[in-house]
């Protein structure tokens, strides 16, 4: 089913040339090259992290985003000062696009004290509140009401912004997402839910996990909420439709559900031994050959005469250099100390306030 869909993406055949959409038309060449750079940074970062994982330098899960880069880049690059973002555990791409450094991210993967979460969160839990990025969450769909709350806070404070809240195609079947949709529509909360539909939840294809009419996003219709479906391999389309939703949030304080079709090349996590059992290797190859978002964007840049192979290579080399430096930084960084385990639990304790000193907070002897 997924290959079938892939052969003619729902909206790929659309006559609209999204490049002409205002949000794209005004793009400067450097910006377009920047998108390429970010997609390449994600891919190189993750390829390096995969090596480290295979070398046994990481624990727990490693969920690779490779194949989906155009979604994070196409959507998050649209964020303004009052726009925020939150996602699930497949969060490396989002983290890098919002501006987190490869160093802090790679160090986090190795569980180092220099990591973005001081080695306490790991791959699934990257955060950068200073960059309006709220994680990085491990419980499927658990982040969806948080995104609602972030957007609620923007409205409460009278700020014109929104929260881009990402979830997977499997996550739509968690009840809390539906509760969030009803609340968002009922109260006109400026949240934009972005379903990154990579067609599988672990080893389960969309068809085996979800009863749908035309698509997952259409469930929003039951809440009288706007929704749209997006061809994720087309960076211009991703930007145009996401911006439309963000405008709706900014101007009318209304929510949207977007479903962006995409595909992951690797297993659900690196531990996924079945990555090529629940889907045919040919399917994966097919996507790499015909739907790779980076290749497609490179070709587009060439067509537009913005980049040639040399320029692209230069950008890629820079991504590789940055990655190598991050690996070095992470490897050289120290692990947390055992006593660090008790920091970052209660802010009042961390700050040494009166409240933090009153009564026993931890029950070790």
């Amino acid at each position: 089913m997924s290959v079938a869909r892939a052969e003619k993406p729902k909206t790929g055949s659309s006559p609209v040339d999204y490049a002409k959409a205002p949000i794209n038309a005004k793009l400067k060449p450097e910006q377009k090259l920047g998108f390429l750079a970010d997609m390449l940074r994600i891919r190189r970062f993750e390829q390096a992290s995969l090596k480290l994982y295979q070398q046994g330098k990481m624990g727990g899960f490693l969920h690779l985003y490779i194949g989906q880069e155009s979604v994070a880049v196409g959507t998050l690059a649209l964020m303004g000062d009052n726009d925020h973002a939150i996602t699930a555990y497949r969060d490396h791409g989002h983290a890098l696009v919002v501006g987190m450094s490869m160093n802090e991210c790679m160090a986090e993967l190795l569980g180092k004290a220099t990591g973005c979460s001081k080695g306490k969160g790991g791959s699934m839990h990257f955060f950068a509140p200073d960059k309006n990025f709220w994680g990085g969450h491990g419980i499927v769909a658990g982040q969806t009401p948080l995104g609602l709350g972030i957007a609620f806070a923007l409205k409460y404070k009278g700020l014109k912004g929104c929260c881009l809240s990402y979830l997977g195609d499997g996550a739509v079947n968690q009840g809390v997402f539906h509760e969030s949709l009803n609340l968002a529509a009922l109260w006109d909360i400026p949240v934009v839910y972005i379903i990154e539909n990579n067609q599988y939840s672990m080893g389960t294809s969309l068809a085996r996990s979800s009863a749908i009419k035309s698509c997952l996003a259409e469930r929003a219709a039951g809440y009288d909420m706007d929704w749209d479906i997006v061809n994720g391999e087309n960076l211009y389309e991703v930007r145009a439709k996401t911006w439309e939703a963000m405008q709706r949030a900014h101007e009318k304080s209304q929510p949207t559900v977007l479903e962006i079709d995409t595909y992951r090349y690797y297993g659900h996590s690196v531990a996924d031994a079945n990555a090529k059992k629940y889907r045919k290797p040919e399917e994966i190859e097919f996507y790499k050959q015909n739907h790779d978002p980076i290749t497609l964007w490179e070709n587009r840049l060439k067509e537009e005469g913005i980049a040639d192979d040399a320029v692209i290579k230069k950008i890629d080399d820079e991504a590789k250099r940055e990655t190598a430096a991050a690996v070095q930084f992470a490897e050289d960084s120290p692990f947390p100390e055992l006593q660090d385990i008790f920091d970052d639990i209660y802010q009042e304790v961390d700050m040494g306030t009166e409240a933090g000193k009153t009564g026993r907070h931890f029950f070790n002897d």
Partner: protein
Amino acid sequence: MPVITYRQALNQAFAEEIERDENVFLMGEEVAEYNGAYKVTEGLWKRFGDKRVIDTPISEAGFIGLGVGAAMMGLRPVMELMFWSFAYVAYDQIINNAGCVRYMSGGLINCPLVIRGPANGGTNVGATHSHTPENFLANTPGLKVVSPATPYDAKGLMKSAIRDNDPVCVMENTLLYGDQGEVPEGDYIIPIGVADVKREGTDVSLIAHGRAVLTALAAAHRLSEEFNISAEVVDLRSIRPLDEQTILDSVRKTHRAVLVDENKPFCGVSSQIASMIQEHAFDDLDAPVQRVCSLDAPAIYSPPIEIQQLPTADRVIQKVLAVCN
């Protein structure tokens, strides 16, 4: 000092904190236009309007999660669960998001959230509506849990909870909402993590939280009247952080402890207290620490039976007599 109800004391705390801090808002089912299922938020919607007092659909996971997200952004949501029993449909949001987000972000985030509502049996609302999850909540490093027994403590602890920069669970009690007590007008707080000796005594320490404190006080009164036994009553007030010092001081003085706890026995709050006391005051104990909990069954509906399912002064007295002979 004016005498008001536990319900009014909470209401004052909300009103004062809403006025004090523009980031404070109340949210929950029927808290606004209906004035609260138990009238705890009476008049606040009229007074402060739609922005500060907000009715929700029946979507606890959704709106508690919303509160966590809003708190991460610096707001101070005060979320009502009509019953704490309904926390179980929002449990993931409470434990994993409110409780863990600071840790998983390496301290980049804090969550100044209050989750509040009644957690008690004894009102014949059946097993599903009579849960007392303070033991579970307090098991979670990252959450704080308080359980006021009097109007005075209710207002002071609620104000501390709202000003606290970490998530605080406030365990109220529908059987206490109507209780009267002296409560100062205006601002005062009771620090979280400080127990209160509600009655001084020398022969045995009765240690309790929430409504069980009143049961302990009733037992203490009869113990002195009928048995000439001087019981000290320690009100934990806060479950996590816990004021172990006050507990241990009391036990080292009386050498005997009977814990009164409306939790179900297995891993109830009193199991932790008993375990702690025997560990740190072993040589001071003249008798094993005793526990009086709710009878170990789901809450029964039948009114005359359920009232006996909760700890009673009689059961407390029996235990005390057993350790004081």
